[in-house]
């Protein structure tokens, strides 16, 4: 695995996560293979319960995979100890959880939140970090750097949360639903900030979203369904992804017409595959 100057690559192989609810085991992620290049911007799309937030948590070291492997940069993080994961989040991976308020100390200003986040960076690395006001200024938040957090709008809080997440100049920024509950201007501001982070710092950006427009804005989308990667989109064009077991997710409109259990005939013609429903 290689990295650019700032961005970190991400690679998942056969990633599985199972958690227990009561007496039931739930498979949240089942055999995900994913490759994100350094400096790339990726949106994880999919319906609720499709496993995208769980995948993001595994990339951030918050949740351990039940099976499979996951690399961030050159480090396989699935087998990391808690201490190593903390170190990972301290200086290599920035994480924004769903809900801006949860990511900020409400009683501290944005700049103080940045200072708080930078306390986790190794001492020798702190001098290389952008000072809080400089960082916030670079991200267009200089005007509110010393304002009380509760007085900020939802969009501003979300942008501050993203700024805090990149306070330690991580190579990978993970954000869960950074644009939810925001109006369009606020959403665009958040996306602009993500662009800035990606452009200026070269940071790899992976976000979870429900919003296809947001996905389109990031350039690459990974759509998850039932814990699997079903589709990928590049520059607006959608591609089904062939799984290791040879499975392919059909588009929703096809599934609507061909319900589960429908038998199809697969016909190959060069680079093309044709599916023909069995006539009964």
């Amino acid at each position, binding site marked *: 695995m290689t990295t650019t100057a700032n961005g970190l690559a991400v690679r998942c192989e056969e990633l599985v996560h199972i958690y227990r609810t009561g007496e039931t085991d739930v498979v949240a992620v089942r055999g995900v293979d994913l490759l994100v290049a350094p400096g790339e911007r990726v949106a994880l799309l999919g319906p609720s319960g499709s496993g995208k937030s769980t995948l993001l*948590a595994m990339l951030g070291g*918050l*949740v351990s995979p039940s099976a499979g492997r996951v690399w961030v940069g050159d480090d396989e993080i699935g087998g990391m100890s808690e*201490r190593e*994961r*903390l*170190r*990972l*989040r*301290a*200086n290599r*991976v920035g*994480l924004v*959880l*769903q*809900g801006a*308020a*949860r*990511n*900020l*100390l*409400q*009683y*501290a200003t944005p700049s*103080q939140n940045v*200072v*708080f*986040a930078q*306390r*986790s960076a190794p001492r020798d690395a702190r001098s290389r970090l952008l000072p809080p006001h400089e960082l916030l200024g670079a991200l267009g938040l200089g005007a509110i750097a010393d304002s009380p957090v509760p007085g900020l709008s939802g969009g501003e809080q979300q942008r501050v949360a993203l700024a*805090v997440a990149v306070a*330690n100049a991580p190579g990978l920024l993970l954000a869960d639903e950074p644009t939810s509950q925001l109006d369009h201007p606020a959403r665009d501001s958040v996306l602009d900030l993500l662009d800035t982070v990606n452009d200026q710092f070269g940071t790899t950006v992976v976000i979870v979203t429900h919003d296809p427009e947001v996905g389109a804005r990031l350039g690459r989308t990974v759509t998850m369904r039932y814990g699997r990667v079903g589709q990928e989109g590049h520059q607006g064009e959608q591609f089904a992804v062939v799984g290791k077991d040879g499975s392919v997710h059909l588009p929703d409109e096809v599934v609507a017409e061909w319900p589960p259990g429908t038998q199809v005939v697969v016909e190959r013609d060069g680079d093309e595959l044709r599916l023909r429903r069995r006539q009964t």
Partner: protein
Amino acid sequence: MESVRLALRGLRWRTGSSIAVLAVAIVAMAGAALGPLYAASAADSLVRDSMATSPAVGTGVVSRGNIAGQTQYSPAELRDAVAQRAADPALDPWYLPGSMALVVHDGTITDGSRLVGVAQAGWHRGQCDAGAVTIVQGHCAVEGGEAMVSQRTAKDMGVPLGSVLRLGISSDSKADTVTVVGYYDQASADPVVWGLDSPAQFAPARIEGPPDRLDEIVVGEQTMLDTNGDVAAVSLRRIDAARVHLADLPQLRAAVTAATAIDPSAVPTGPRTLSISGMIEHLDGLQPQLDSVAVAAFAVTAQLVLLAWFVLFLVVAATSDERAGEIALAKLRGMSRRSTLAFGLAEPVLLVLVAVPVGLLIAWAADTVLTHSYLVAGTAVSITWTVVLALAVCFLGAVSAAALAARSILSAPVLEQLRRTGGRRARLARSSAIDAGAVALAAAGIYELKQGGSDALALLAPGLIALAVGLLAVRLLPALARVEVARTRASASVASFLASRNVARRPGGLRIVVLLTLAVALAVFAVDGWTVAAANRGDVARAQVGGSEVLHVRVASPGELLAAVDAADPSGTQALAAVVSDNGTGGLIAADATRLGVLSAWDPAWAGTSREAIGALLHPPQPAKPLVIHGDLTLTAEFTRTQGSTPLTFSVGVRSASGLPYQAKFGIITPGTATYSVPLPPCRETACTLMTFAWTQPVGIPASVIGGKVVLRDVSDAKGVVDLTSVGLTGWRSVDSASPVGGGDAAKVVGSSDGVLTVSIAKAPIDDATIEVADHPIALPVLQGSNQPVQDGGGVYAVTTGLDGGFARAKIEGTGVLPRLLQQGTMADLSYAIAASGTGFDPLDFEVWLSPTASPEVRAALGKLDVVSTESVATTEESLARSGPALALRLFLLAAVVALVLGAGTLLANAYVVIRRRAYELAALRALGADRRVLVRSARREQVVLALTGTLLGAVAGLVAAGFALEALIGADASGLPVWLGPAWTPVVALLLVVLVALVVVADIGARRTVRGAVPELLRQVQE
């Protein structure tokens, strides 16, 4: 610094809960510090009180030397040697400069050929200084050959100014002769100048004849220096109670031990002197009281620290719990465990750090107020190592509580932690172990108490019992609540359902039950214990003092006392005469029994009788009224002598108004009719009572059997006819027939009519033939102290030691606790005790007991007596309340107040901290349309259930603890009085009502605040 700033911002952000936690932490710290602070003050007060109230001779250092045996030295050399010994600089920190006196005891004072009396002659350094003694006439004795006598001596003995007296202290007549130059008031002598001896030394002779002991003859120093008698030089250094503190005791003990040590190997370089002191014994006697305070202080401090720690754990852990999201944020940012822990601890530690000095300051202020209000003036309020230790334990407890709470947050994965899952089984196991430990300790404490122990574990028992009850209760409460959930699920009472559901889920609020159980139990135990102990102290005071108020007076005789009190209070309802004799056999108290039932503070029931019965019991009616004689007696006696009988001496016995008996002889009674007269000097100024007529064999005449008959008639005194037959035939009896050793009726009244008394005499050799007026019982009716051994008189009666120090026949009417003497000694009626005296009286303490309603007129009339000192039930109760056990119980009372404040404070803080988390749940219910009033009712009901449960369990635990512990704490009183062990329902119920009202108010405030904060908008912050 940035961390502190951030923590301060966080505290400001959570202003409500921060203030609540800070307030509870401050109270907890103050409570933990107050116990040892007050204990140190109480111990200091005990020391100072004992120093201030003990007689100077008990705590002072007496240095003395005698010229006897070392006549090679002069009185001046002896004086200087004693002064040098007394001026030991090691004693200076606590002792006043010494007095100095040169005295010669028991000089026979004569005025020319007239014997004036026996007296001590003495010179006291500073005797002529202002305030040393009041000179009522003339001037002070300064020069050699000058003397002062007391105004009492001057008046009673007729010593005019200018009289020349021989002191009887020197064989050199010049040195022995003094001129009276002044009279002094014997009651005004300053003890600082006079040292050990008061000049008021008057004591009447025990029998008629010998001279009285006079007050001191105060002479000039030169007179004492010139005498060649047995001069003693005496110096007393009094303890200065204002300068003695608890911390001084080791050095004080060492200094006194060194000062009074006798070195047999030391070679004297001048007159031999020695120093003695009762200080060491005094300190040894004080130690048990100090120990009782120390043990109670440990128990109270331990319980308060336990309570404080519990409270701090509760609120600090809750605060940390509330900050779980922020601590998770630190982990999200990748902070190391150490940094995250520091971040998590910063806020609570800051609060607790502030609470330590503020709590200490509050405790110090409270202790200052308590000390000023209840303890001896000048008692030190000092911060001892135990105070520091208590605060340190609390501080560490609070920090460890925060650390434990933070640790559980640290160890959980961020997302799991946000879901608040896991660890329940481990917590349950841990809490079960704590429960079992508390129950085991409580059982051990109860066992100790049942074994009669009163050590630390036994004193901790109340707290342990309460803790065990509380911990077990929170196991049961959720189960009961689940039953209630099932019952209310389908009912219309949503509030009840919600409240019982929250209780059933065993939220952190259940810990409030444990806290309240502990707090209320301590409060109930303390209030019950204090009330019970106060009531018992009141009984002890009433028994110790006897009357509601007691005047100690100086009178010449018990008869005078009886007459003076009768004159001052003819009604017999306001004042009572009593005397106490320390006769070496437990003592004798003789009080006017006819008034005891009406005005004694002592309860006759303590001696097995009653107020109604005691008068008749100790003062039963007699066959005869006293026969009163005024002046000399004359009578006609017709004596018919049996053939061969020898002559007989005829005498009469009277008792003077003072109570002293007086015998006078008519002379040899001759056969036939003759008139006899006898001078009775004691009866000339004040009336006497006729006691006996006796016929005895004259000395020198050989013993033989005699007999005959005597007819007495025409009896008269200075006021006229005395009718001997007025008392009837039964009003006379033979003294012999009353003898415990039997004997025949040597003299017997066989006829009594029309003023003619006929006596038959038939006596064996040596026996006296005596008849007496039956105006007093043959055997003195007495009550005996329950520990007083019965003295067998060898016959039908027991014997007791009378007012004269001799044996008197006694009839024991009951046993129990007596006034003043408690379980020792004997109690009798005063007039009968006087009548039972055959000679003069032992030294007596003359007392007048006053009822609480004694009128100013009666007090004014009694004020004419020479009142030496007064005491009362109230002052004795105050004194007892300053004793070690009482101070120990006051500590428990203090603990109760702190516990209650902590309990209420924590309940309120809980509303701000713990319940706040429930605001999200309530917000969801409101979003679903639940009525706000229903939610308030639900929250209030839940809090009230918790408060009520804690209060009731605490009340039960407190009463159970009191039932076990009070007997060990207060049951070991030496008075022997029946000990009341409660429960003191009235104050306990009043306390519980106050507590309940306070808790309901607090619960209401908490419920309203919680629901007010539970707005649906809150839910927007909670998105998973």
